[in-house]
């Protein structure tokens, strides 16, 4: 689908769905509960905007309640979630990366949200997206969509020019990307490329995109979730990363998300793999770098031709146990997702990181009033629309089906540990892949109950 079709289809479907959802407001009874409703969100302004919307609902319907946002840093998200859920003091509403949401969903820790989805409008999703991408398990929906966000190839056009690279990244395959990274390192002061290689979930997410493009996957959901990682495609991917590594900042071995953002925003690297957030950061701290930045779909794998990213279909989930505000959170979520400009303000809060998921928002003429649309229109389109065509996710590999084991894999940083064995401990890619496959098998064996 091209952009024109996307707009056309969206306008029709989205308008109708949104009118349906907004035009028939549900009668909300005044709530008597009082207290603070804790909402967990990832770093960034968007969760705060959503909470503002929720508070607007509370003001009118539950004056004794106040929604407050607590930010969970990405690196700590897994231990924080696990310890707080185990201790029986989770936030009442959580926005968290999709593989972790899938794990919690399969553990039976979440409240189904089909009733919220019905009110939000089942026909509102943008073309190419399915509700299950955000989190459905055994026929029930457990996650309310908030946005989708993909990492893409972000380049500094001035650095490419300085290095004498004239081909467009649109046409690149892995070999071109490798050559570009080496050339930048040789001919300019910048590092060729940067992405996280620390023992963090960030590294897992970067590797997933590359692995999936090469035709590898961790588990085969269509074959009883058998481990499928020990493959030539996985070995090829690990070898490719170790070939890219000399063009990266040596510190990348300890990097997590924000180190990569800084690497681009401070002008350290000529290319990075990153989500749209890096544009906002660069605009803030280094406008000159921002001016030259553009995002492209990832370089294609030479054999498969795939340019897959790791798309986080991120949404809102509601812990079932020890949560006194389930009904109120549902009301507040339905309100902010269907009232006034909240969904639009949510998307506007971090362009182009937070891609719209509802057609009426994607089609709203006011969407393009954000200043980034003046200079980064093409890049925004890459994140909002094109990225969805190349979407994959470790919890929904190749979009073939939800796999709750991925959350556990990322909690342990298994993929990251695998590549670190190659880069730090100098293992062969083949042995590192075997090690990862063994760890995945152990995860599967230990958590088989989630799959039954």
């Amino acid at each position: 689908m091209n952009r024109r079709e996307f707009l056309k289809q969206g306008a029709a479907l989205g308008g109708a769905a949104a009118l349906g959802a907004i035009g028939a407001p549900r009668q909300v009874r005044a709530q008597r509960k009082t207290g603070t409703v804790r909402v967990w969100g990832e770093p960034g302004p968007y969760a705060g905007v959503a909470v503002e919307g929720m508070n607007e609902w509370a003001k009118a319907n539950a004056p004794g309640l106040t929604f407050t946002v607590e930010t969970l840093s990405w690196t700590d998200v897994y231990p924080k979630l696990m310890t707080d859920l185990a201790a029986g003091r989770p936030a009442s509403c959580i926005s968290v990366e999709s593989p972790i949401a899938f794990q919690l969903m399969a553990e039976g820790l979440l409240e189904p949200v089909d009733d919220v989805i019905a009110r939000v409008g089942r026909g509102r999703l943008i073309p190419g997206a399915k509700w299950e991408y955000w989190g459905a398990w055994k026929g029930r929906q457990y996650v309310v969509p908030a946005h989708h966000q993909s990492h893409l190839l972000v380049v500094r056009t001035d650095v490419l020019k300085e290095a004498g690279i004239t081909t467009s990244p649109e046409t690149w395959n892995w070999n071109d990307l490798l050559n570009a990274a080496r050339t930048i390192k040789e001919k300019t002061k910048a590092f060729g490329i940067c992405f996280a290689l620390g023992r963090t979930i960030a590294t897992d997410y970067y590797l997933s995109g590359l692995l999936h493009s090469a035709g590898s996957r961790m588990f085969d959901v269509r074959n009883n979730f058998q481990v499928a990682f020990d493959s030539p495609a996985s070995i090829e991917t690990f070898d490719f990363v170790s070939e890219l590594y000399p063009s990266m900042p040596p510190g990348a071995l300890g990097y997590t998300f924000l180190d990569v953002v800084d690497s681009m925003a401070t002008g350290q690297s000529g290319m990075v793999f990153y989500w749209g957030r890096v544009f906002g950061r660069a605009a803030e701290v280094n406008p000159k770098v921002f001016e030259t930045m553009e995002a492209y779909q990832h370089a294609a794998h030479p054999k498969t031709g795939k340019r897959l990213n790791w798309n986080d279909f991120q949404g809102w989930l509601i812990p079932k146990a020890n949560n006194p505000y389930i009904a109120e959170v549902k009301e507040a979520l339905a309100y902010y997702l269907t009232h006034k400009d909240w969904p639009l303000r949510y998307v506007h809060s971090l362009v182009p990181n937070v891609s719209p998921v509802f057609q009426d928002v994607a089609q709203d003429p006011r969407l393009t009033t954000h200043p980034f649309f003046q200079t980064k229109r093409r890049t925004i389109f890459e994140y909002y629309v094109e990225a969805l065509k190349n979407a994959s996710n470790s919890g929904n590999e190749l979009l073939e089906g939800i796999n709750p084991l991925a959350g556990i894999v990322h909690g342990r940083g298994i993929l990251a540990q695998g590549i670190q064995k190659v880069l730090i401990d100098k293992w062969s890619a083949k042995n590192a892949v075997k090690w990862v496959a063994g760890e995945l098998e152990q995860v599967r064996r230990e958590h088989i109950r989630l799959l039954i």
Partner: protein
Amino acid sequence: MGLPAVPAPRRGFRLSDRQVGILFMLPFAAVAAAFIVWPVAEAVRLAFHTKSPFSPALTFVGLDNFRYVLGDPTFWAALRQAVIWTVSSTLLQSVIGVGLALLLHQAVRGINVFRGLLLFPYMVPTVVIALVWRWMFNPEFGIVNASLHRLGLIRENIYWFSDPQWAMASVILLNVWKFTPFVVICVLARLQTIQVDLYDAARVDGASAWQRFRDITLPQLKTVLSVVVVFRTIWTFNKFEEIYLLTRGGPGTSTFNLAVYAFEQATANLKLGAAAATGVIMLALLFGGSALYLRLIGRQEE
């Protein structure tokens, strides 16, 4: 006429000294039982069970958790690194601490200001220190690399937290910087109680400064140093936050110690039983090590 009758003393409720002592100890005993004994007992119990953080179910598995932990190569790597981390940190803290204490023992004007300043690292919360150190040791714009460049000591940036050797050196350095003041305080307090007569007599006998240090100061410090070394060894071996905040155990697992390993087992692997088993092994190692060390010191004194 007889003497007026003296009223017999009233036989009231009276506690013996021993009972009063016990009474005074009760609040501490209650707190210790609630916050030390019970958690330790629970951890030991948990070490023989499997437990998911999400479920109340507790399944007895005997020694399986210990088998799992002892069969995990990362556990042995973490143990090896824990020994390097503990021995290096404690040794450096002791040597530097004694040196600084000797300097601060001088009768110099304004010495109290320096003594006060020395406590600074000990007082600052570890989280703050770790964040500041992450900035200072940032390979691209940190003050440490910039200073080393300026002094001409390095040509290429050192990637402190990305190279396994440098990462271990960084966390040891942080631990030494933060906890050396503890050694200084203990040693300084002992230095101030050594009789000056001993030094005067040694001077009269013609003993050099080194001989006075070796034959008077060091033997006098022996008791306090043995206690300090035991404390610092136990605390350092158990330390979690400095390593976790600075390197998170990385790169790879190169700065894992057993505390970080146990944390990973609990929060990443969701194996509370294995984490508890690691804790029990740490307890046994520290108990055995400390007993052996104190026994050796005691034997030397005899």
